[in-house]
């Protein structure tokens, strides 16, 4: 479970300060997926990065599993949280297998156990291990890189997964394909997830609930139906209109 309670993040600038995240509170229950949506600069990425302590809140408290993250060891915390970013962030000098198995290696897994875990994960994300495990990232397509990135995030079987625009850099066809695979993965894995996106269709498709952010504030947080039934303001209404009505369930 993830909780943010009255979290604010202030950055100093030349002309004063910017409130990137302004008194935001939300909860993501066990096994639930929350999609944070908003324009760029709305604070959605910063809000997410405070969960694995890539950013520290100025005020307010972030908790995972009921404990404030600032009281947890940063390295241990991050290893209990899978992390996927937009362009994968794969290590270009390591093979696919090493990228995925690196954390297992650092956690002291025996080689055989690491190898079987890597193969299991490659199967899970639909990349036949024999073909892909010894390739380097640049030998993969964007979609394949993103699958490896997801596999890497799942290596230690973390209870929480954070994804920052995971499908944003992909072409529409590949994205649709990955969306379908992701949905079936979600069913199997039952992770607590936060996904940052700027695509309302994606948010409706992947999120159990959707948090709409604008200018550092959480404008509205609820299920797709709740948002449709009672949009909090014009900003939410505009986002809803931009979405393709029949997209869910497509």
């Amino acid at each position, binding site marked *: 479970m993830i909780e943010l309670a009255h979290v604010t993040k202030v950055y100093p600038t030349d002309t004063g300060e910017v409130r990137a995240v302004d008194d935001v509170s939300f909860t993501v229950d066990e096994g639930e997926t929350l999609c944070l949506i908003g324009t760029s600069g709305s604070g959605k990425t910063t809000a997410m*990065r405070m969960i*694995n302590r*890539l950013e520290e809140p100025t005020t307010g408290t972030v908790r995972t599993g009921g404990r404030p993250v600032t009281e947890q060891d*940063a*390295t*241990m*915390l*991050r*290893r209990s*949280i*899978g*992390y996927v*970013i*937009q*362009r*994968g*962030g*794969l*290590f*270009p*000098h*390591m*093979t696919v297998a090493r990228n995925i198995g*690196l*954390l297992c290696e*650092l956690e002291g897994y025996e080689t055989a156990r690491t190898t079987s875990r890597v193969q299991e994960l490659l199967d899970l994300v639909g990349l036949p291990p024999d073909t892909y495990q010894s390739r*380097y*990232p*640049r*030998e993969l397509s964007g979609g394949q890189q993103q699958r490896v*990135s997801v596999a*890497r*995030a799942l290596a230690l079987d973390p209870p929480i997964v*954070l994804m920052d625009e995971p499908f944003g850099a992909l072409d529409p066809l590949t994205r649709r394909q990955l969306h379908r695979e992701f949905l079936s993965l979600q069913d199997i894995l039952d992770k607590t997830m936060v996904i940052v996106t700027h695509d309302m269709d994606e948010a409706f498709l992947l999120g159990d609930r959707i948090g709409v952010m604008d200018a550092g504030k959480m404008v509205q947080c609820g299920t797709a139906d709740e948002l449709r039934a009672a949009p909090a303001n014009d900003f939410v209404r505009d986002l809803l209109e931009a979405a393709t009505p029949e997209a869910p369930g497509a």
Partner: protein
Amino acid sequence: MRSPGPAALAALCAMLTAGPAAAADLVVGSKNFTENRILAEMMAQLIEAHTDLEVERRTNLGGTMVVFAALQSGDIDLYPEYTGTGWAIVLKRQGTRDALETYVTVAREYQARYGLIWLSPFGFENSYAIAVRDDVADRLSLRRISDLTPHLSTLRLGLSHEFLRREDGWPGLARAYQFPAAATPTGMEHGLAYEAIDSGRIDIVDTWTTDGKLARFDVTVLEDDHQFFPPYDCAPVIRQGTLAAHPEVGPLLARLAFKIDNRRMQRINALVEAEGLSFAAAAHRFLDEAGLLQAGAAAKSAPTPAAAPTPTGTPLAQLLLTHVWLTFLALLLAALGGIPLGLWLTRHPRFAGPVIGATGVIQTVPSLALLAFMIPIPGLGLGSRSAVLALFLYALLPIVRNTYTGVTEVDADIVDAARGMGLTDRQRLVLVELPLASRTIMAGIRTSAVIGIGIATLAAFIGAGGLGDPIITGLQLNDTAMVLRGAVPAALLAVVADVALGLVERRLAPPGT
């Protein structure tokens, strides 16, 4: 080249770890030009012939400040100096014309300020002089320096770099004779200036009154009619402590007093420069003819003139080995120091600007000046240690800068992913950032190596040896073949190092990138 086996490397290690002037009782130094080196040899041979003292020679030191610093620090015990140089360069005085007053003043001041003693002069005066090609002198009726004034805009002046800079050289001369500002001399190596005047590319050179080349080239020495050039009587300068420790040395060196006049010094210089005798052989011939080797253990450790046909007889392999070793050691130290420093800066970026700036400032210090700065530092002195430290300082900038930029230029997404997935700072550095920066870091090491091989040729100026030895001596003797003996291997070495390290660089490049 014989292979640098473990024995040779061990010997070189010993050479580097041995303190400066370790074993010898007495160290005779000299500046890096023919006359000074011959005089140093004379003094050394005279002492060896009449005492049991172990004498070491540290000749070929680069210029007044280097040799004076070495004398002050005790790296050398004595060397031949000129009164005018002591007056103007060391004591920083101006405007004397009287030879006796100059000698008395420098002798008094050296003793009071530095505890250094001027012994009796050798008897010749090595003054600066201005020489004009004979045909030009005839055509324009040039006899005195003041005759030059109306013709300076059309005459071509090729002056040595030191003369151009020294207050008792061109700047003072131009003022004293009120030369027009239009006179623009070209700076050149003195050894090459005679070639240039001989082939008609320049008309005027600076020279000195005992220059052995004066007799060989068709040039006329102009009279210093305004008596601008200060007197340059030559005499041994020795540490007071050395005289006290070896009281027999003072009277012994006094035997050389007033034994050599200008013409004789010219001839002795020509023995080396025109006839190809070694410095030792020329010195020995004079001592022998003057009867200074008799009435004592004359045969003892007398040099064998035939044994050394060229002034520097060090085998090329040894020069090359020394050169490689100096550069390699400096590079190794720079990598061991520079890479961690560069990495530290990536973690403390606010220091990056100042630190990289500071290593950059070191690079702007002229190489010879940096080498000279090292001599007075305790534990360094003349020779390899100073050279290695100077080369190390030069090698730092490319290594520190490339390490820092190599690591900071690693894709921000990759660094973010590494942090976010829970790598510790150290794991991120070792597993991700260093491998991805390795090629850039190696490129820095490669740059440093090529720069270092070039600068190491200057190490010869402070007696560290290497391929600079034949280059410097060759320039003094106007011997192009000797210059090439050092320059060609140095250039080849730089090319080989560049190519070899380039291959290492490519191999080090992480796979998949």
